[in-house]
């Protein structure tokens, strides 16, 4: 009798263990570097409820911004410059509020350059070029789990905007460029529902155990 109870307990634990194991499935999508300003869609697969019970949705966002400012003084005298560019990124669930709004990425330079040095190259003594490449990232645990349980892709809207301004000599050429990339990853954490094969294996083990016990009892009786 004690042996019966032992095997029953083992089987129960195996079943319970199989039912409560945390599983993770993840997906990733990205928007390659392109010139701002843009608003683009990112799509990630929804959570398949056949996998189990969704317990957590973790979104990981990453954005990259490349900015460049340049000026070439073409005047016969030196001049000052004030160059500024600002980039803002954001990500929202399509039709929903923004999930990520990183701080604006700013490139601001002031200074002075000499009279035109004879070379139109945004460099030398009469020209300057400033560039920077910055990455921002963030993580968000979305509590609205139900909205991710779908056989259809989940849509996200990513935006990247650049605004630049410059004040340079009245005899000059100046400009600004901004490009950006975004990527989004999602991790679905869930409690898996045991597969039928797992149930069959457990059932088989239980039957095997019972048969073994019966055989032992029969030997004792004999």
């Amino acid at each position, binding site marked *: 009798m004690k042996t019966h109870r032992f095997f029953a307990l083992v089987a129960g634990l195996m079943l319970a263990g199989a039912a409560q194991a945390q599983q993770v499935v993840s997906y990733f999508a990205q928007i390659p570097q392109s010139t701002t300003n843009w608003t683009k869609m990112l799509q990630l697969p929804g959570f398949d409820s056949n996998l189990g019970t969704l317990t957590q949705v973790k979104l990981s966002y990453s954005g990259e911004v490349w900015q460049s400012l340049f000026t070439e003084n073409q005047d016969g005298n030196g001049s000052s410059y004030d160059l500024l560019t600002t980039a803002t990124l954001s990500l929202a669930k399509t039709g929903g509020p923004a999930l990520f709004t990183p701080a604006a990425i700013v490139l601001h330079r002031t200074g002075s350059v000499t009279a035109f040095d004879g070379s139109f190259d945004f460099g030398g003594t009469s020209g300057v070029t400033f560039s920077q490449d910055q990455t921002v990232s963030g993580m968000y645990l979305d509590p609205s789990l139900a909205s991710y349980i779908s056989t259809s892709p989940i849509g996200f809207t990513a935006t990247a905007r650049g605004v630049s301004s410059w004040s340079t000599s009245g005899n000059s050429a*100046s400009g600004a460029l901004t490009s950006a990339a975004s990527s989004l990853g999602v991790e679905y954490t869930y409690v898996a529902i045991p597969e039928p094969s797992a149930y069959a294996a457990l059932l088989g083990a239980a039957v095997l155990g019972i048969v073994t016990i019966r055989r032992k009892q029969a030997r004792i009786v004999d």
Partner: protein
Amino acid sequence: MSSQNYRQLSPARKILSAIIVLLAAGCSVVAKANTFSESLSFSLNPADTSEVLHFDPFNLSLGTLESVGFSFDATRRHDWAVWNIAGEPASVDYADALLSGTALHLDASVFDFADQSYGSGSTGTLPSVSFPTFFSEAQAGRTQFINGLDAVYPSAFNPAGTLTDLAGNYSPVGFPTDLNLSYDPGHFSIVANNALSASLVDITGTATLTFTYQPVSVPDSSLGLFVPVLWVGLLVVAKRRRTELSRAV
């Protein structure tokens, strides 16, 4: 002197009075100030930001210099353009386009042009010029501005600010006749993105130096006519007196 009194004067006195009046009139002509002006044209641009204006010095034989005046008639020309450098056809939206701080410098004096605002606008879809093509497109020189097929000229393209009649604002100390003229194109500012802007300012005009002087006091030519008349008059009077005396005797 009334007309009655005048009739009572002897003929000799009448003639003398007339001569005095004529002499006074002649003297008033001599006291009138004269002016002498000289105008020089100038052209300032990014390649030639300054020049020396060589005025002729005042000719002292003309008289005594009383004052020196200077005036400008200057026109500012501003060309600017923007190019799309986004890498694909796009519209360049710009805002707060402004040219400010343009000034003419004459020796230590500064003459400011009014700021020129172009406000905001949009170019409409443009093909993109790419590196390094736009380097050449934005080269200095108005010819390339005009020939730049991808450039956009706002509706306010090529406005001209004008300064005129600045006389009295400048008094050359010590009456120099070589004046240093230069200009500051000021600053061009604009809000845009993924764009290249180019701006050129030049100033052309005329500078006029005016000398006001008091001519050397020389007898008026009319006086030369009155001297013989005076002599003739005196001779006539003397002859009449001699005739009257001889009759009386």
